């Protein structure tokens, strides 16, 4: 192992001794979750093309544990919304989000998904956070693959530090209730 180029995840904070290592459950669960986020690409336009480049060998999102694209919402952890979402499509996006199993995270990639972008018009949803909660916003029109990767890494930071009980906390319930999602 000594001369290999494999990067290992840093050991979290804890107590180490001969034959044992003790740390918080939150940290271990967070570490496991953060390094195997299964993405669900919801690509509608040019940001989706940039994401294809991000998936490819050059940028290789697999380096961050996300090589397995899940095209079923039920087996996905991370919903990446890339592109303009028309108002007519909003209920479908919402349904996809509701079908995902907890824990689930959302990245809004690009200006359109984050705020409607240049499409300040009656037919376009002015940001997906009008219908589903969003964890990370990636700016850009479209963003470069590096930016999408940075967004994924920011999300990993969130996932690592998230309490295992967050999803049953009153704050989280309140957040979902504010979107009328039960």
């Amino acid at each position, binding site marked *: 192992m000594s001369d290999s180029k494999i990067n290992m995840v840093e050991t979290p904070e804890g107590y180490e001794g001969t034959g044992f290592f003790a740390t918080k459950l939150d940290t271990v669960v967070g570490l496991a979750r953060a390094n195997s986020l299964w993405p669900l690409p919801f690509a509608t336009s040019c940001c989706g093309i940039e994401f294809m480049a991000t998936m490819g060998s050059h940028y290789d999102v697999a380096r961050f544990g996300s090589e397995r694209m899940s095209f079923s919402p039920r087996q996905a952890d991370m919903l990446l919304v890339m592109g303009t979402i*028309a*108002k*007519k499509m909003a209920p479908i996006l919402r349904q996809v989000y509701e079908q995902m199993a907890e824990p689930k995270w959302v990245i809004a990639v690009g200006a359109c998904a984050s*705020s*409607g972008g240049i499409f*300040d*018009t*009656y*037919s*376009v949803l*002015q*940001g997906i956070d*009008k219908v589903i909660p969003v964890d990370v916003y990636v700016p850009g029109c479209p963003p470069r693959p590096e930016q999408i990767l940075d967004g994924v890494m920011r999300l990993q930071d969130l996932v690592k530090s998230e309490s295992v009980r967050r999803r049953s906390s009153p704050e989280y319930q309140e957040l979902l209730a504010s979107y009328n999602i039960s």
Partner: protein
Amino acid sequence: MALETSDIQNKLVDNFELIVRDFSQQHDIFSFEVDSTSILEVMQFLRDDKTLRFNFLTDVCGIHYPDAEADRQFAVVYHMHNWVDNVRIRIKCFLNGENPEIDSVTSLFLGANWQERETYDFFGIIFKGHPQLKRILNMDEMVSFPMRKEFPLEDGGRTDKDDRFFGRTTDNC
């Protein structure tokens, strides 16, 4: 022998003298106005006449003229194409602003179905006799007819723009 615009005009004037008017050559397309109540019979004549043979309805769309008089607030525009002589015409029908209604031409051209639904969707023009007149592109819950000038183009829910810098008035936010 190609189909001349003068032939089209003469044929129409002979058969529909009071119904068809305002013939003009706009750029390279021959255009005229038809009474909105008579569009079906005129279009049937244009399609079935042995020399005119306008066998294809290229397009149906709407126009809103908010500054025009009450009876000419809306227009429905039909483009027809004669495939044999490769001649195109444009027909305009003007409608009342309070009650924009016109006969559906789906009985003549099945292809008019979606185009009339689109025109209804964006302008609220009612096509009488249409088999399924409901919205086609916009979401079903929408209450406005967005291509009418009284409806704002922008979405009211926009939060990341400062209206002072984007030329919006408070009315359409």
